[in-house]
């Protein structure tokens, strides 16, 4: 009797079907050596999966009785590789930290009345951390601010605009120290005669109308 040999791996991986699967199972039923080899291969494969999925997933798989699929194993492997980047785990994004901070404030016992008080523990951006939309659809972009905060920002913006506008207008209007008036060039000839009346002396000549200078 020829043993299964290469077909054992195909059998363990579930790659055999039809008459090949029936013939392999019939051989295993009759051959103790092939049964031992198949059992050892299955054990090895299980251990490899356990290494890739991690203890929690493995425990979850064991608890649910379902074996993780190849895609789930890849994700688990990715998470484990990421967890090996540093002792504190991967640095979360700023947005994640801000949302986590807001969530923690809402979850405080003396928190604001508008806080949801739900969630916690989930990844950011998941539906558990957000207030659900009325239509039940998930949010597409940035989460909306709370209404009272938005109103406060608007009030502050309006006040700032008014202050800046009034200040600029006042600075502009206060620039001219003198009221607008005609341009004056003193009429010295007329003034000199008047000064002569005041001073009791002869009128001075107007130097701005001086005739030719003496050579």
């Amino acid at each position, binding site marked *: 009797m020829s043993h299964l040999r290469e077909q054992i791996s195909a059998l363990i991986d579930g790659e055999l079907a039809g008459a090949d699967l029936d013939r392999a199972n019939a051989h295993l039923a009759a051959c103790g050596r092939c049964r031992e080899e198949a059992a050892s291969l299955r054990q090895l494969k299980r251990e490899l999966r356990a290494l890739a999925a991690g203890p929690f997933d493995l425990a979850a798989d064991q608890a649910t009785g379902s074996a993780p699929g190849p895609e789930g194993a890849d994700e688990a492997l990715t998470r484990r590789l990421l967890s090996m980047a540093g002792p504190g785990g991967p640095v979360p994004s700023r947005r994640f930290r801000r949302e986590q901070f807001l969530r923690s404030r809402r979850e405080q016992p003396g928190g604001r009345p508008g806080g949801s008080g739900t969630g916690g523990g989930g990844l950011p951006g998941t539906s558990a951390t957000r207030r659900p939309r009325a239509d039940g659809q998930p949010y597409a972009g940035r989460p909306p601010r709370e209404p009272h905060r938005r109103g406060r920002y608007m009030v502050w913006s309006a006040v700032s605009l008014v202050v800046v506008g*009034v*200040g600029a*207008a*006042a*600075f*502009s*209007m*206060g*620039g001219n*120290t*003198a*009221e607008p*008036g*005609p*341009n*004056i*060039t*003193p*009429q*010295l*000839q*007329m*003034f*000199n*005669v*008047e*000064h*002569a*009346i*005041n*001073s*009791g*002396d*002869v*009128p*001075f*000549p*107007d*130097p*701005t*109308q*001086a*005739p*030719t*200078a*003496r*050579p």
Partner: protein
Amino acid sequence: MSPMSVLRRPGLLLSAAMTITVPSVLATLAVVGHEHAIQEARATAVSLGADAPPASLPSGSESAVRPAVLAGSSAGRDAAAAHAAIFDAVVNQQHDGMRLLGKAATAGLNTSYQGVELIAQSGVTGTLTMISSVWHRAGGLTVTQTSDATVLAGSQPYVAYAGDGNSPEGVFGVTKPLVTLLGKNYIAMFTGKGSAVGRPAFIVELDRADGSLAARFWLDSKTLVPLRRDVFDTSAQLVSEDAFVQVQFGPLAAPPSATRPVSSQWSRVAAPAKLLLDLDGQGWQLPATLPGGLALYDAAQSKSGAGQVVDLGYSDGLSVISLFVERGTLGKMSGWQPVSVRGHVVYVAEHSITWAGPGFVYTMIADAPPKTVEQVVAALPQSSAPGFLDRLGRGLDRLASLMNPFH
């Protein structure tokens, strides 16, 4: 310590003796010296009485001096009589000084004369020298033609009719209103005789309250028309020198032919203080007094192409400042020299200084020491670039004024 132990100490005795003796000797010397001074003063008073203006002055001078002379010739040697003699002599000097100046103001109007005046005054940009030809007929026409000594031709002749209140009157600043102010701010003293432009003259000095010499006048001894005037500042520096270099009294030749009458463009204000009050309510910034003890004593108004012009005359009797104020901003300033006076940029043209104030243009013509002129410029409103807060505050005021429905 007992009295006996004190008496045993000769040093203390000597000190006590000196304490009594020295003041006694000093008091005796003071009394003797005082008697000697009284005798000298008495002699001086007699001498002043002899030098008083004789024929041209009223007899009041001699009658006032006579008691002093009598007191000096009398046998009484008591100090009270001597002090009275000195006091009377000084009073007579002052009385004569003011009386001479008052008569000089009248003589400048009522005497016919013609001549050439040399006028040299210190200004903020240096000494200004002018030559003026003057022709005056008693109680009537006056023709003056003044020229800067640095130019070839003179200014246009100025023709005025004396006595109408709108024409220059007086010679070298000796006018009735100014002599009245002189009596309030200075002490006029007749100090004796001298001569000017080859003519005998009475000399009258003006002293400030601190005793420093402020001015000296030479008055023609025959007509009392001023022949010369020297003005000194508080540092005893000569700041103004006005003098006839040629003068002739009596019947005159025909007036200069190249003359044309000039009608006055000014209307006098009867109450200058009230004018200030009225203009203050309209936003004009006009002071009632200026630094240097210059008080408002005259005012006039006129119209120019730009609007109303106000002339305010400030004086202490000796220095005269005419301040011309009109609404507007400074225009074309050709012929004017920009000068910084105490941090303010002003424009100077010989005796005239002009600058922009807040909404007004100020033009000042001064017969005053440069130090006084600088003080006046610094005291009057100036237009300057405001600071940030000032500008903001003024703008807010204007905004509020615009938005005020009751304004």
